[in-house]
Each structure stands twice: as C-alpha cells, then as structure tokens.
C-alpha cells in the first residue's frame, strides 16, 4: 500500500473518509427522524466503492444496490442532492421519491439502484450489450452483494454476457452476510470457479480494505472488460453495522465482533489517524453544507404525487 503522502492515495482516502463521515452523520441524524426510510450503511465497505469507481472512466456506468451511499459518492454524485434525497425533499436526486435505497446519479454514471436483490445485474449486461453494438469503449459495471449470486438471474446474466461477449464487469461485494445469514449456509459454490465455468475470467481480491489495491485490481479487470469480455471481480469486505439501520448488532450473537475487529486493524480510515485529522475539517464543512441544503429543501407535495408515472 502506498504511503500517506502519495497523491493518489490521498485522493482515494479523502473520498473514503467522506463516505464514512457522511454515514456517521446519518447515524447521528437518524434518531431525529429527519431520514424516515431504511438505510443500509456501507461503513467498512468504503474502500470497495472508492477503489472501483476511481478505476472507471466517467462515462462507464455502475448499476448498484440499496447499499449504495458509497458508490453514489465515489462515482461523483452531488452530496447535497444525496442528503436532500435521504430527507425526502424536492432538492433530492429524485425529488425524494427514491430515498436511500434507490440512489442514482446518471450524470456521473450511477444508474438506478434497486432494493430487489440481484435485480440490477442484468441491467448492466443490457447496457454493455448496447455499448458493444454501438462499438463504444464504455463498460457497464454490476455491483452486488455475495447473496445476490444465489438468485437465478445471476446465472442467466453470466451466461448471456459470456455468449455475447459484452463489456460487463461484475463486482461482488463479499461481506459474507445476507442480512444475518453467513455465506456457507447459502452457497455451495466458489464464485471464481463458478464464473470460470461460463468462460468468464474471475478474480477474488482479499484485501478489500486497501483502496489502492482495489483500484489496481479494478483497472486490470476494467481494461480486460473494455477489450470485450465480461469479468467477475469478487472483493472481500466487511459490514461493520447492522444489515439495515444505524446500529451495531454484535449483541444479537449471530456473528463475532472479533472478526470485524480483526478487519478494522487493516482499515486505513481507522489506522491513518493523521490523514483523518488532516482531512476531516474540510469534509465536515462539505457535509454541513449538504445537510443544510437538505434542511432548507422543501418537501414534495401533491404536485409531485402523480408525475412521471408513465
């Protein structure tokens, strides 16, 4: 891993810290009921979204999930529009109709996030199919959790992507959990070997805390994909908080705090204290402004209720 003074590292670190501080602000705000919707926090998983998005081109598209605060920010979505969206305000990305589970920022390449597990995987394949037919050099990235690979549509999507040789990059954020279920009780397969059966190149990356390394791995995968073949990149990561909501959940006893603590030892957002200290003030100001924007933004009213249906 590069040192704290490295430019690139600093850029990635700053984005990752922004994501974490944003979500910590969400945790603070939550009890006030200003954000009246389910939130699926990515605290602990920031390095994945940051490393992946930094390796993509601006016009590459990402199709993600209900757990996408990180990808929204890393792909370059407006922070004020995000907070306003979480607040359910008109100033939000989607005028408050989407909320935390359906973030998007098409202007920077984050397409609609879905709260139905695995449902955006084929969307990425479809976009990639279109890129290929128009012989563009763009790629489409499907971001999904480990549990999503259990759904039948994952099999259908891989098969089609492989047959059509479309530039689709499949990124599996493996936090080992689907809600409270551990991967071994849900999966009989190894994701790498599984992808290879479809003739899809696959790599598992264990150091999901390492933004620079995630970026490197994604760059390689993305270039390979851009040349016209799908790729599955599985990245190990860790969900620090409960599945949905803002709390901790170790006391429920379904998982070991020790496992997360071990992971945290590698977490630069925890270990690189100096950089955190250095960058926090500016980031906090940014968050302040975004929250202020949300607070001031009006709530959607009857005029919005029946618009944009068809």
């Amino acid at each position: 891993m590069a040192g704290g003074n490295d430019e690139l590292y600093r850029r990635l670190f700053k984005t990752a810290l922004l994501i974490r501080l944003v979500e910590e602000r969400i945790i603070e705000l939550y009890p006030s009921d200003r954000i009246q919707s389910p939130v699926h926090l990515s605290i602990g998983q920031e390095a994945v979204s940051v490393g992946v998005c930094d390796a993509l081109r601006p016009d590459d598209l990402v199709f993600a999930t209900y757990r996408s605060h990180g990808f929204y920010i890393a792909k370059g979505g407006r922070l004020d529009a995000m907070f306003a969206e979480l607040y359910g305000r008109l100033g939000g990305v989607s005028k408050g109709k989407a909320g935390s589970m359906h973030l998007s920022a098409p202007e920077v390449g984050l397409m609609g996030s879905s709260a139905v597990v695995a449902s955006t995987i084929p969307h990425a394949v479809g976009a990639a199919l279109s890129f290929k037919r128009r012989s563009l050099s763009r790629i489409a990235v499907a971001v999904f959790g480990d549990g999503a690979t259990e759904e039948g549509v994952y099999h259908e999507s891989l098969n089609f992507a492989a047959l059509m040789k479309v530039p689709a990059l499949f990124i599996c954020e493996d936090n080992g959990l689907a809600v409270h279920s551990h991967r071994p009780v849900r999966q009989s397969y190894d994701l790498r070997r599984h992808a290879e059966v479809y003739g899809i190149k696959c790599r598992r990356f264990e150091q999901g805390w390492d933004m620079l390394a995630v970026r490197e791995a994604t760059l390689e995968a993305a270039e390979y994909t851009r040349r016209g073949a799908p790729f599955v990149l599985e990245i190990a990561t860790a969900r620090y908080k409960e599945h949905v909501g803002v709390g901790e959940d170790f006391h429920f006893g379904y998982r070991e705090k020790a496992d997360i603590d071990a992971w945290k030892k590698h977490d630069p957002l925890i270990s690189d204290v100096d950089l955190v200290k250095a960058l926090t003030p500016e980031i906090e100001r940014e968050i302040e402004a975004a929250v202020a924007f949300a607070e001031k933004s009006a709530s959607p009213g009857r005029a919005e209720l029946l618009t944009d249906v068809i």
Partner: protein
Amino acid sequence: MTATAKKPQAATRVLSYAGALLETMDAGLGQHPNAFIMGQGVDDFKGIFGSTTNLHKKYGAARVFDTPLMEEGMTGIAIGASLVGDYPITTHIRADFSFLAMNQIINLASKYRYMFGGIMSCPMLIRVVVGRSWGQGAQHSQSPQATFAHYPGLTVVMPATSQAILDMYPQIIGRHPGPVISIEHRLLYNLDFTVSDHGKPIPLTSYVAREGKDVTVVATSVMVVEALRAAQYIHDKTGIEAEIIDLNSISHPDWDLVANSVKKTGKLVIADTSWSEYGVAGEVCRQLVMRDPGLLRSPPSMLGMAYAPCPTAKSLEDLYYPSQHETVDAILTQARGGRHGVELPSERSMTEAFKKFRGPF
C-alpha cells in the same frame, strides 16, 4: 374468414395479423436504428408465428437475435439497454412465460421513471402471445392484462385487429415514453383483416369498433372479433344495433367513451379473454358505478374464461371459452331479455371459424 374493425375506406387491402406484426416490426427497425428484437426463436424459420421472419437477415444478428431460456434475465437486459438509449422489443411466445419476468416487469420496468423522480426511464415493447385452443392447456392459455394493468407505470394494449397493430405499434416503438406490454392473441395471427392505410389511426386507448344504439359491448382482443361477428349476425336477424367498443388499451382505456355508450344503451356486455373474477369486467363496472350506478338499467352480461385453469380436452375447451352462440345470446339477452327467441348460430367460436388452427403453437 375476414373481419373488419372499421368501415373499409379509400385504399384498403387484406392483411393478416401476423403480417401486420411483421410490417410494424420491420418498419420499427427500419425507422429506429436504436431498436432491436430479442427473444427465443425470433431469428428461426418460424419467426414468432411469422411476425419476425427474416428480419435478422435484413437487419443483422446484432439487432434481431435469439436468446437462451432466460425470461427474467432477458427483461432485465432490455431495461439496461433501454436506459442507455436503445429501444428493445422482447417476445414471449406465450404470455404465461412472462410470469418468469414479473419481477423485472413490475418491480423494475414499471417503476423506473417514477422511482427515480423522472430522471430516467426505460421505454421498451414487451410482446406476449395468448394461446387458445388445440389443447393449449393450463400453462399456455393465460391472458394477464388485468394483472399488468393493476400496476401503474405499465402501458398495456391488446390489439384486436391488423389495423390496431398497424396504427398502434408505430406510436409505441421508439416513441412511447415508457414500457409497453402488448398482449397479442395467437388465434388472431392467421386471420385476415381488411385494413386501410389512410383514415384516423386507432389511438392508444379505446375506440368504437362498430356503432350501435341498442346495447353496448365492451370487448378485448379476439373477443372484439367475436363480438363483431355476433353483432353482424344479430343485425341481420333482428335489426338490433350493438355498439362494440374495443377497449384496446387496458391500462388507459377511454372510460368516458364506455360510459357514454352505456348511458345511450343502458345495457352492457363485457367480453374479455381472461377470467372475469378480478379482471377487466370488474374495472369496467367500477368505472361505471363511480360515474353513476344508474347508468346500468340491468345487470350486465359477462363473457370470459370459466373460473378454473384451462383444461386441455376439446370438449372442455368448448365449454371453457365463450362460444359464438353464447356471445350472440348474451347480446340478445341484454337487448330483448332472456326469452329473446332468436335462433342462435351453429358455429361455436373462433376456433371453428378458423378451422385450420392446428398450431404451430
């Protein structure tokens, strides 16, 4: 046989339903470079019952291509392609198979524009074919218009004639802002219709297929053709004038057109291709009573599938679907009461009107 949806006009010609589909698919691909067709067998020699035949040769494998068996995946792929500017057309040779794509259709496609506050949308055309007769059985015969129309965000049409296809598909392909499900009917594919290339195009809503003053018939898909035949028979026998309204758009019907007709006649027959229970008939009744329960002077008659899965045996199929004489009887009963005493036609239904129907399936 030949059925007519509107009075023949200046330049008319005879065109089968499958032929109209092929023409509009061809024109759609020709006029919209971003349009493509994908589905199981779209590029084979049967070409979805003749509706896509040889288009892959004309437009290339990149725009007309076969897919594996993957209804859910294919629909999700169509959404993704649409989001980046393509206009996907997908096919299901039986509407029953679209249930495998229900999640992508209802949870994603129908909601995409609204859920994201109007900043994205996924226009596309999903073509599904309703099977009927020749022992299609319980899994190749369903007609899910009421199911899809319940969910806001979807536009659901049921073209009943070649004219409806020639007029509507060009308004849909590459032009309609959202996802459209067109529920085509297998029995209609090989029927010849008189079509006119001039005249006012059939809109993406309901229209009067035959004018009349004595009784209103609201019908969908093949039941429009059945009703037109019945109305002609009744007119010839009795002079009674049935007004036939082709609901045509199930998600966006012209309810005022329906209500005004019922206001005029006070009598109503609803003839739909699916079950009446929680179906189109219910919504028609709701729209009428919301306007004025007094519009209906007597209980309407309803023609639909018997409330059971579709049996395979021909003898049961004949009882399961409304026959031509049941359609005639329903209209006459509304017009003249149960003891109308008019002789009923012997011919049982479309399946006999169109004897040669033995598949392909």
